[in-house]
């Protein structure tokens, strides 16, 4: 009897959080079961859409942080010395 696959397990699978055995079971279910395949593909598409939203911090912010790195070295002795 085929083990029932939940939608939560499919989401875990997409985010590579399932173990090797479960991954194999889910991969097989995606091929065999139409409903599972549909949910998998829809979820995958939605997740891919989220990837379009990627924002860089400003150069100003990066420089402020790097200034702090330099300042922190003036306060902390170099452990390698």
């Amino acid at each position, binding site marked *: 009897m085929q083990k029932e696959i939940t*939608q*939560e397990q499919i989401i875990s699978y997409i985010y590579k959080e399932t173990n090797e055995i479960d991954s194999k079971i889910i991969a097989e279910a995606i091929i065999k079961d139409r409903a599972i395949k549909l949910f998998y593909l829809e979820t995958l598409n*939605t*997740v891919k859409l989220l990837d*379009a939203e990627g924002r*860089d911090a400003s150069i100003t912010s990066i420089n402020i*942080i790097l200034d702090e790195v*330099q300042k*922190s070295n003036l306060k902390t002795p170099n452990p*390698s010395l």
Partner: protein
Amino acid sequence: MGAIQISDSQLIVHFLNGNDACFETLLKRHQKRVFTTIIMIVKNEYVAEDIFQETFIKTLSAIKSGKYVDDGRFVQFVVRIARNMAIDYFRRVKKTPIINGETGESILESLSFSENKEEQIEKKDTENTIRNLVNELPEDQKEVLLLRHYGDLSFKEIAELTKVPINTALGRMRYAIINLRKLIEKKSLTL
């Protein structure tokens, strides 16, 4: 043959041995993931830049003081700080009156750190669409989605951070994706 990327853990060790460039590499490697997480939570570029700076300065201090114990999950550590700072920001905002401009928008909304205005306008439509859709989700669903997708925290880590069982975190993610899908269909967006 591709170049081998030095790990975060190795960069931290070198940084602690006096090589500042290693922190710069860590910062530049993860800034997009961390900044995206923050801006999606606070919805305001000015505030996001501020929290972003504070987050990395706090991270710097944690590394230097030895409070950061490396377990190979550096970016997740940074995202946890960012998330807590964003929550603190909302607590402060609740106590502070919001100043609105002539058209009713928050004064903060009209400020921008962007170096290139034209580039910002070009990207605005796509980004705003996705961000707006995510912002329409209930807060608990949105939080799991942001921490998992942009923050790269595992569902177990999210469950611990938000103090819910792992199945609840997973359930919230499931609803977030289903609801996001419905919103996409409602707005007739194509993937």
